[in-house]
């Protein structure tokens, strides 16, 4: 299950799209993945001569899968790419291990609540050996543009 139908609704594009696949989705959960390309734009400067994926980009990846893709699915018929905008409104994250160029990550997100256009989720990121990379809580809103 790649769910290209959801991914193509996302308001992001390269070089700031961090979703490859949606692996599972229902009313309470979503799981997706992304492989960080070796030539992502931020590796040139983070860090000097030592490319490591920035934590904010890991959070962005978790938000794109765990909030944006999930939210579009939950909104269902109420989603309209031309009329609805999305915004991250809060995040609290802990990071446990670095992600290097070329690594594939898996993101899981579990709904805490989805009320009045606001989605709040427990999110986590794992590597291919199922080791935890990051864990936290993210919230976002959808709104009429």
């Amino acid at each position, binding site marked *: 299950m790649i769910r290209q139908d959801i991914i193509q609704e996302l308001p992001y594009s390269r070089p700031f799209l961090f979703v490859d696949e949606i692996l599972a989705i229902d009313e309470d959960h979503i799981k997706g993945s992304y492989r960080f390309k070796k030539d992502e734009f931020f590796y040139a400067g983070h860090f000097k001569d030592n490319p490591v994926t920035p934590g904010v980009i890991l959070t962005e990846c978790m938000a794109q899968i765990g909030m944006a893709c999930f939210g579009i699915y939950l909104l269902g018929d109420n989603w309209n790419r031309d009329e609805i905008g999305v915004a991250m*409104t809060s995040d609290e994250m802990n990071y446990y291990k670095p992600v290097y160029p070329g690594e594939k990550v898996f993101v899981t997100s579990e709904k805490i609540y989805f*009320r*009045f*256009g606001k989605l709040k989720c427990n999110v986590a990121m794992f590597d291919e050996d199922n080791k935890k990379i990051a864990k936290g809580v993210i919230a976002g809103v959808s*709104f009429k543009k």
Partner: protein
Amino acid sequence: MTKEELLSKLKTIVTPYVQNTEGLNALNENTDFIKDLEINSANLVDVVLDVEDEFDIEIDNEAMEKMIDVKSSIAVIESKLAAK
């Protein structure tokens, strides 16, 4: 529950989301959550969810849209409590 008790509970609920503490100190019936307290719209949702938990009531979309200031929030809470 008296109006003073209700106001006091509401003040406790909004406090963690307030960005303008002067507005909080001067909280009264006419205080507007966004203009006077500088609560953002995402946290306004948290205020409503906390109101639901505190008073054991359910706020629907229509009621939520009214809850933009102290006076109308108290009116919504009172009517939901009366309907219980």
